[in-house]
């Protein structure tokens, strides 16, 4: 069964900082094509899971596998090359660059990073023949302008799909908050990711905006054929969006299941102590 493929596997991952265990024996996986939610109270270690997957931290114990390939020790930029991309909890756009440039940056690794080749070849993703001649070709504009146009068209296409095209020439910092979040998603998509890690994409959005976001993320999954792993606090978003949910508390995975199962789960209700939970469960 194709749908049951594990695109990402976290194999008994533990992350310690000094004496603090931020993630304790996290053992689960993301299935290809699904929308998986990761929830839990503040400080439960959710973002740390993302940071371990994207190579920001090297886990104290355990392994991370992507399509069966061990990516535990890869650097953040290599993680992007193999096809995982992310957004950030506190928006991290290239503020002083235009919206278009923000998205075009995401395609740079396709021509610039020779050492990514072996990973790209391994997962059958190499297409542009990234090599060091591209540097000279871009400076002396030898066949580069055609490539630049391809990048621009692709970026504009993504912006179009996310409804940001009219803002392409604006500075990223001038965008309203919600659109900055969207731009982060656009940028992540432009890296040609197969797995998208979204860190609280609905934070700071009003209820109608976050409802639109739910529809948008579902649409993105189908349109771009990506798998989505999402951290979110807004329970309406999580319940409306995710097919499967993981719950963390104090670094430990305490529950797993469909939205319905999670809403019934005693442990989960205890972990939240009713704070955000009560009004969702009514």
């Amino acid at each position, binding site marked *: 069964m194709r749908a049951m493929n594990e695109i990402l596997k976290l194999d008994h991952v533990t992350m310690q900082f000094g004496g603090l265990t931020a993630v304790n024996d996290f053992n689960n996986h993301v299935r290809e094509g699904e929308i998986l939610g990761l929830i839990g109270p503040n400080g439960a270690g959710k973002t740390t899971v993302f940071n371990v997957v994207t190579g*920001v931290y090297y886990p104290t114990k355990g392994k991370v596998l992507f399509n069966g390939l061990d990516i535990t020790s890869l650097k953040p930029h290599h993680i992007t090359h193999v096809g995982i991309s992310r957004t*950030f909890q506190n928006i991290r756009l290239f503020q002083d660059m235009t919206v278009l440039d923000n998205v075009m940056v995401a395609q740079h690794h396709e021509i610039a990073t020779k050492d990514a080749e072996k990973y790209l070849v391994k997962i059958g993703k190499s297409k542009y023949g990234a090599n060091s001649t591209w540097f000279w070709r871009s400076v002396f504009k030898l066949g580069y302008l055609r490539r630049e146009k391809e990048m621009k068209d692709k970026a504009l296409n993504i912006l179009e799909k996310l409804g940001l095209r009219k803002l392409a020439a604006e500075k990223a910092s001038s965008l309203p908050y919600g659109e900055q979040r969207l731009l982060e998603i656009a940028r992540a998509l432009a890296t040609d990711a197969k797995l998208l890690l979204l860190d609280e994409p609905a934070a700071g959005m009003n209820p109608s905006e976050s409802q639109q976001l739910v529809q948008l993320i579902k649409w993105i999954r189908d349109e771009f054929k990506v798998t989505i792993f999402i951290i979110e606090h807004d329970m309406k978003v999580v319940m409306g969006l995710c097919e499967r949910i993981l719950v963390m508390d104090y670094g430990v995975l305490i529950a797993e299941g469909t939205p319905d199962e999670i809403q019934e789960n005693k442990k989960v209700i205890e972990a939240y102590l009713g704070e955000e939970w009560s009004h969702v469960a009514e």
Partner: protein
Amino acid sequence: MNLYTFLQNLINGLSLGSLYALIAIGYTMVYGILRLINFAHGDVFMMAVYFAFFLVTLGKVPWLISFVIAILAAALLGFTIDRVAYKPIRNAPRVSALITAIGVSFFLESFAVVVFSGIPRSFRNIYPKFLNNMLILGGHEEVKYGRNVIVGGLRIPIVSFVILIVTAIALVILWWIIYKTKIGMAMRAVSVDIPTTSLMGVNVDGVIGFTFALGSALAAIGGLLWATRYPQLWPYMGFMPGLKAFIAAVFGGIGSIQGAVVGGFLLGLTEIMLVGFFPKMAGYRDAFAFLILILILSVKPEGLLGKRSVVKV
């Protein structure tokens, strides 16, 4: 190298190290609070020495009083630099602050060239002569050039001891200010978390100003001792000692006062010992300090006593 020369190098190294330590404290305190390398710190050191020089030569003020006035003037100068140049850009990117600091340093040096002139001056006649006398221990008398001279033994300029004693006193006073007074407590609080401290009703700008003044006063003490040991004045005299003191601060762990002291002593000692063991390397003495810096930064960037910080994403 025999025991005598080793001891001699040890004491000279310690006295040079204590000078680095006195200057390094100013760097480390400011960095601990503002995350700013105050490039102008070495120039405050230079200005203090010039103040004392002109008070004695032109003002005919007794040397000890001149030294005290110079230290106070340096404290005021440090405070003023913060108020005029750094305070307006407190919230600007850190690079802007660093560039401004370079500009202030450049300004003070040019100021000294214009007002005090770029010609080197001698500090020799400013302080009592006996400080430069040698303390000779051991050795034996020989007749050379028709005179009795002492050969071998331990020769240490008296000023080296004076430097060690004054540094010790200054460090005790500093320790008392930081750990036993209210302003010291405020300084420690500000270095941990500025927003929270200001919510507690502490006048953060006042504390920062005081930190600049205190650091500058220590640099002035270091500068006056430095000029007594190496009695040549010129507008760029603060540059190299300032950089090396900064290296000492990084060596010991920037932000930590104990680290600055330890780093200062270690840097002074290794530098003197290097020249002592390999006299041919004397020309590379300054390069050596930078090599230490680069080594430390690539191996243990938090320094000997510093705390490692985790990158937040």
